[in-house]
């Protein structure tokens, strides 16, 4: 008697269960063995017995959640036997430092779980690897056709332009502390901005970790160590939650910017009181999502989280088999 196809992989509300190996991908509750795609809090949680992830992701998890026990590193491209006749291969996802898609193989069937990903170039992480598979389990954070992220160089140019126009103010950029902040800094450096960039305290350790992993970020200093006048005319990075917080009162007349894919929609920017929206995202936009599904060309596409209804509709229109998984706890309001 043979099992029905793909019955070895089972989506549950709190994660994807690899049944024969009794392992879970990005579980939102503690399990004996977790395969983690990347270090963002909605995917990587502490408290697992064993955590399999890339070395960079493990370092990030250690920094953020103080979890070192049971760390089991997986290099990009390395194929691991995880038991029950299942192998796992970690492939770059292009989302943030250390982010991986996980290719699972069992009885000749290939399943890829993308975690979060993007296709746009990013100097702080390895690019997404298109890999053939039978089932492609994709995110859909920006799964609506209104979401198209412009080339990042255009948005960085807007930021530098705003700085030139406001020499007596400062530009406060809200950016996710893991990934987005370092990417914005690296792109500012690539655009020739060599001056000091000021950081909210919550960003310092992660920036240092990125530098230890070979991502040069230039001269960074803490807002808490600076005098107000030093920061005039400067660029300051803070987590989005700090934008309208009391913390920002110490800054010289800040113009509030935010680096996020949601900034594509005017009212989203207004809701957050953003004056300078920068459409910069570490997730695939609509065109990247649909292009990736077409290129990977799986038999079936499963959609984990985000605006899955629209992506399902696109699959239907392009005659691709697809289903939405109701996973709990994945949402990325700050991206």
């Amino acid at each position, binding site marked *: 008697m043979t099992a029905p196809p793909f019955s070895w992989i089972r989506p549950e509300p709190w994660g994807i269960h690899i049944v024969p190996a009794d392992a879970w991908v990005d579980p939102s509750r503690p399990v004996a063995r977790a395969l983690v795609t990347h270090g963002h809090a909605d995917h990587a949680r502490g408290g697992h017995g064993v955590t399999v992830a890339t070395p960079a992701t493990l370092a990030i998890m250690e920094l953020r959640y103080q979890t070192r026990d049971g760390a089991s590193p997986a290099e990009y491209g390395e194929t691991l036997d995880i038991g029950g006749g299942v192998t796992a291969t970690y492939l770059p996802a292009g989302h943030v430092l250390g982010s991986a898609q996980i290719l699972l193989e069992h009885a000749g069937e290939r399943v890829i779980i993308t975690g979060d990903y993007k296709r746009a170039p990013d100097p702080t992480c390895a690019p997404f690897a298109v890999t053939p598979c039978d089932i492609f389990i994709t995110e859909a954070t920006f799964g*609506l*056709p*209104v979401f*198209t992220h412009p080339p990042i160089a255009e948005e960085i140019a807007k930021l530098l332009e705003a700085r030139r126009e406001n020499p007596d103010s400062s530009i406060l950029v809200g950016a996710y502390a893991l990934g987005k902040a370092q990417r914005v800094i690296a792109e500012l450096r690539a655009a020739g901005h060599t001056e000091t960039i000021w950081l909210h305290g919550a960003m310092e350790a992660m920036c240092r970790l990125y530098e230890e992993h070979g991502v040069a970020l230039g001269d960074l200093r803490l807002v808490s160590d600076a005098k107000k006048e030093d920061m005039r005319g400067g660029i300051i990075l803070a987590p989005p939650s700090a934008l309208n917080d009391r913390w920002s009162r110490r800054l010289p007349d800040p113009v509030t910017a935010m680096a996020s894919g949601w900034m*594509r*929609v*005017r*009212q*989203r*920017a*207004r*809701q957050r*009181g*953003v*004056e*300078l*929206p920068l459409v910069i995202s570490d997730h695939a936009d609509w065109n990247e999502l649909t292009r990736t599904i077409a290129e990977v060309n799986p038999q079936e596409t499963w959609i984990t989280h985000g*605006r899955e*209804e*629209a992506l399902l*509709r*696109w699959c239907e*229109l392009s005659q691709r088999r697809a289903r939405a998984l109701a996973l709990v706890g994945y949402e990325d309001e700050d991206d």
Partner: protein
Amino acid sequence: MCGVRVMEEFAALLDALVYTTSRNRKLALIVAYLRASPDTDRGWALAALTDGLDFPAVKSSTIRNLMMERVDPVLWALSRDFVGDTAETASLLWPEPEDAERHPDLPLVEVVERLSALTRASAPKELPALFDRLDAKGRYALIKLATGGMRVGVSARLAKTAFAMAFDVAVEEVEEYWHALTPPYAELFAWAADGGAPPDLAHTPRFRPFMLAHPLEDGVVDLADYAAEWKWDGIRVQLVRAGGETRVYSRSGDDISATFPELLDVLPIDAVLDGELLVRGSAQGGEAGGAASFNALQQRLGRKTVSKAMLRDYPAFVRLYDVLLLEGQDWREAPWKSRRATLEALMPRLPESHFDLSQLVEAADFAALAAIRDTARDEAIEGLMLKHRESPYVAGRKVALWYKWKRDPLLVDCVLMYAQRGSGKRSSFYSDYTFGCWDGDPDAGAELLPVGKAYSGFTDEELKKLDRFVRQNTLNKFGPVREVKRELVFEVAFDSVHTSKRHKSGLAMRFPRIHRIRWDKPAHEADRIEGLRALVKD
């Protein structure tokens, strides 16, 4: 085309306004735009910012239909729902041609000419060519321009203030001329920007800005200084006759003459009069007051043509408050007491069929006046007006001249039944609430019947909490509407309640707003329909 402001710059102005919260920065942006642009373009831009443009051939549905031909309807609907704005969704989803030849240097005046020339039949063919010439921002500006309602957080007043600042003229003077002129306001620019003569409007029956009142919060005024009048529950109007022609203007300066034809040949002299438009009846002030409730007046509002039956069943008249101009003399600088005397002297010359005088409310002192005001609910009157006896008639709200002293609102406890996603700044938030009262004993199986809908009265923090409640307590989804568990009680404030055939409960509230959110109160303790019905004064 050096120095010429074009569509691209208008689009940039709109975007900058959207993202600017500071009033001063908004003013600076508009001032800079107005100073740098040629007359025709800036005139149209000013019209757009003050909602003074109307292109009847282009409706929101025109845009939606254009999109439906190009984008999958399901993807369109999901996108529109998320974005919360048709113009923005369309601007983002418009399929740009591969070989797009952008012409962002399209002058605004040319865009306006092309939009004006459109018909319902030609619009679907002509608009795509315009869309193709612009980028997403340009398309957004174009659609907003064509369909009206900029929603960039700029009031007409702010735009006029910016105009006055840009050319160093008094905003009061701008208001004087504004309503007599039409876009692109050539005479206005000729006067303010180019130092020409002011517009000659002596023989035009034009609107003058209303004098408005501040709410009297907790203060006390001396009745030696202030006169009291009832605040009648109709609509404030200005009746203007000049050059033999009479017009009726609403509070916002809209010409509503066509809606009230019976008032157009009853004013025997040239004058500008301020008053309350009412319908004959007895709900307000009893037989002596002679006015029907606002509900009756509502039958007459918003109609472009009026049937004989309407004129017979709901005859309109004006209860006069003030006189601004009379037979060539401008009374606005004169103190209220002189204007009042002039108005009283005028009354015998006006036909009783269509005019009466708003009577003063006499009281020995403020406490006595307060006692009189407390009876106002029975009279179905909104409250009292307090006018300084020495006050000139000035545009807008000036501190300490006029006060409105509204009666306290009525309150009723209702249960949240449905929530709808808001638009604009509240897109994606469930911010529009339908609530109901019990049609009997809730513990004996009574049901809730909707009695009203409110969108205001809560803070941003409360909105977030309400949004979370709606999402976590959803029973059913109908497009943008969610039906929720009957658990949350709102204390709803409202001005009055009337019978209505539109609602299943048979009742309609006037100006309902959320007064308090009663997270603590069980739903079965909310009020019943019968209690609300007892408050009806029709």
